[in-house]
């Protein structure tokens, strides 16, 4: 069973008479427990793909199976449950709650997750246990992104979805974040899907998917992916 399977999936955005086909009859299978990189230029449809897997959006046509569950026709509440239990999100702009401290940001998932992990352990895993009681605004960008990874992991999701997670970071911090994500796949068996336009990050992927004009150009497994340190930033 694949972690994610797209069957003839299209996503069309309509604005008046104008129609934009963000994904066009996509078929795709992504294996579980791998570090998967989705690559493509701006507007290629990679974020749309990620949003569909994450249950932030629904396809116009086709079927999406995540861990065997068809999520393409779920109601709003069912999608919320799905997001709470199956996927974790990491954004380029972190999206932490500014009025909650670091540990509270991580712990807030306890309100909704069925089997949450210890917030303390998650912060320890991302190396921020010493900053537990700081507010997000008191942290650097990289630290904030690590908090957002800790929050995503605290839900104990099967799949971690990362949309340009290093887009707002300098190279050193970016490497640190990528290393962390990679270890989640290697050590914890999570499926990590990273969307990026950075070709170098693609070299780290167990699987690389290239998207262009709403279509999959290729989806290949890499025999010898690079480590985060080896990536030429």
């Amino acid at each position, binding site marked *: 069973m694949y972690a994610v399977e797209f069957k003839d999936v299209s996503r069309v955005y309509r604005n008046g008479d104008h129609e934009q086909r963000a994904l066009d009859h996509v078929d795709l299978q992504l294996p579980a427990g791998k570090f998967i990189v989705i690559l493509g230029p701006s507007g290629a449809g990679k*974020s749309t793909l990620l*949003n569909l897997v*994450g249950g*932030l*959006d629904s396809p116009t046509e086709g079927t999406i199976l995540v861990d065997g569950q068809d999520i393409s026709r779920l109601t*709003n*509440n069912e999608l*919320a*449950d*799905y*997001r*709470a*239990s199956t996927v974790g*999100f990491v*954004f380029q*702009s*972190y*999206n*932490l*709650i*500014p*009025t*909650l401290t670091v540990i*509270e940001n991580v*712990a*807030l*998932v*306890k*309100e*909704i*997750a069925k089997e949450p992990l210890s917030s303390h352990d998650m912060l320890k895993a991302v190396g921020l246990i010493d900053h537990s*009681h700081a*507010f*997000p*605004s*008191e942290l650097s960008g990289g630290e904030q992104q690590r908090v957002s990874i800790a*929050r995503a992991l605290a*839900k104990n999701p099967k799949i971690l979805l990362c949309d340009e997670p290093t887009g707002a970071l300098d190279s050193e911090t970016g490497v640190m974040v990528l290393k962390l994500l990679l270890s989640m796949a290697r050590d914890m068996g999570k499926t990590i899907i990273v969307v990026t336009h950075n070709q170098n990050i693609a070299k780290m992927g167990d699987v690389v998917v290239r998207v262009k004009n709403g279509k999959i150009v290729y989806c290949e497994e890499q025999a010898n992916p690079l480590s985060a340190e080896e990536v030429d930033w």
Partner: protein
Amino acid sequence: MMLKKLLRTLLKYKAQFISMAIMIALGIGVFLGFNMEWYTLQVNSNRFLDETGFADYRLYDTERGFSAEELERIRALDGVDDATRFMSISMGVEGTDDIVILSVSENMNVSGFKLMEGEPYDPESTDGMWLSDSYAASNGINTGDSLTLTYKNYTITGTVRGLIKAGEHMICLVDESMMMPDYSSGGFAYVSPALLERVVDEEIARVLDENPLYRLAGGLISSERESSINRLFMQINVISGLSKAEFVEKADAALGRTCMVASKAETVSWAETQGEINEGKTMGSVLPVLFLAIAVLTMVTTMHRITANEKTQIGTLKALGFRDKRILVHYSSFALFIGLVGTVLGVGLGYLLGWYIMNPSAAMGTYIDMPYWRLHAPWFTWAVIAAIILLLVFIGFMSVRRMLKGTAADALRPYTPKKMRHLALEETRLFKKLSFGTKWNLRDCFRHKSRSFMTLFGIFGCVVLLLGGLGMRDTMDAFIDSFYGTAINYSVRINLNTETAYSEEDSDTARESYNQAALELCEKYGGDWCAQSSVQIVDKACGLEIYSITRDKVRFLDGDMAPVALADDGAYICTRIARSFDVGAGDSLSFSPYGSDDKYTVKIAGVISSLSESVIMSESYARNQGIPITVTSVFTDETQIESGNALIQSYQTKQAIMDSFDQFMELMNVMVVLLVLAAIVLGIVVLYNLGVMSYVERYREMATLKVVGFKDAKIGRLLISQNLWLTALGIIIGIPLGAAVLDYLIKALAAEYELSMVISLTTYLFTVLLTVGVSLVVGLMVAKKNKRIDMVSALKTEE
């Protein structure tokens, strides 16, 4: 181009603009409406009183009245502009229990009337009657109908020639215990002196027919005719600019005796109208301040948020080369636009509110019977409105100026809200135990202090208005219950005809034999009695009420509306006298009966609540002090009152008195409805505006929660719970402050009823439930928007 931008921005922030315009409209509407109410009353009543020659002073002699020669002496006084002999007598209407006050003015330039319908006044008419149009309308009487009035031996039958309104009867209370006119059972009428003379002549002819021997005393008959007419003219009404002291001195000298003088301030029509005007002034200065303050504060908060949201656009304009001045003018014009829209709506609302209170069919029209109701606004309202618009523009100007500070690059950077700081209470154990939602909301309240403060202020305003309005009603209800349920323990009040108590030859004997007859009547009806008269305390006209209570027909209430038994070792004074002369229990007080040089000093036994401004004492204390007693009323449970007894002048049932109070309560209910409506609108508008603002500001946070897996309902509950906390806090602060405002309003608005504030449990419950309800409804309206959060686009935006 900039105009297009202005209109599109208005559209973008339509919820904020609409709510600000509504708040300004409410503030200006309430301010204008309430001020228009008292000013309209002032302008229209003054015009009417001037037109009908409302007298400045009234000289009274209820024993022998005034002669034509005495009138001339008064008229000749330096400082007196005009004067008339005036008659005003309560008469029964044949075939009904109604009472009509019959008035005659020899000189219609003083204490005259305004013809509303029918024939003009004819001083020579010997059968014409000009009747109150309100009384006529309530009783289906038309011009041409005949009406018979009776008073003692006199029967006056006349034809209604015209329907009128009169300044002297602008508030027509046929009985002093009534609070509101009741035209279905009483009114007033005017007849000419010619008709009066005809009636006196007919009475003399009747007496002569019964006693033909009297005819021998021809000259005597002629002088009796004159003194009969004089006795009916118990008043000389005067128009004069003199002060009361000057007039009293001159009048006493001219007449060679002391007469009771009442200035217009001591008449019901003038005093009550002035009371309404002053109440209106108080209402016009208290409530609108609350509304205007909320409108201005809402404007400050909202304009700041809008300009903060628009900061990058402001920066873009600056970077493009627009001068600061142009940008300032552009964004200030938003405030101007909102101010103008709000003002136009507010002026409309003000006129509507003014009309709602001040129209002849409304509650005020049933109280004050005047012909003019055109609305007038005092000049300062326009000045205040202009100042408010300027202030709003200034607020807009200052908000934009803040965003324009520094270089174009500074202006281009998006507005960054204040960084979160740790709160002192975070160190407490309790805080650590709080749920995520509670912490989130609590920190949000502290982070956005002005928004939280405004929400609190809106809730506070809502609570104050509800408690003020409903508490006023409770207070009046409690007062009516105590007064009519406890104090008035009789079914009928009989007013006695005291004429025989006064005799020029031997006043003491006449009074004694009169009192004897009155006491026999009292015994017959199994009642208690009261001797009521007018006294002067320093220069103030007050009442003196001496009671003999053996059958518990009348009870007295203290300031807390608890019953008090009259002790025999002192006199009681009402709260107003206590306040006016700064005296209380244990002090002494001196007064003189009107028309007498005697002076009595009494010990004050206590202060009680009284509808009339009076000194009250028991019969036994009055006799001890040597105060003369002339019984004026009998209180009984007998409802069958004999007719034809010369001692009985008139009677009122308790029900009739209570019915008149119902009308007063109607006026009160109108105000209560207005206040409750205003509270609801204010609550909804302020909370919705701030709720939308909070929603916009927390949009990204809510989108994050949604992505993480929070359901819409849960996010909604988080938002609503913040509203509910602030509501609870607003209620906790609002209730004591609302009670304080109510206490102030009661003292300012209804001093004459000597009320003590009462707020019922129902009012507290209703206030709390309605406020929570408004908050909940608005919370749900805002929370419903959660469903529309676009997670993808919300989270893509750069911070």
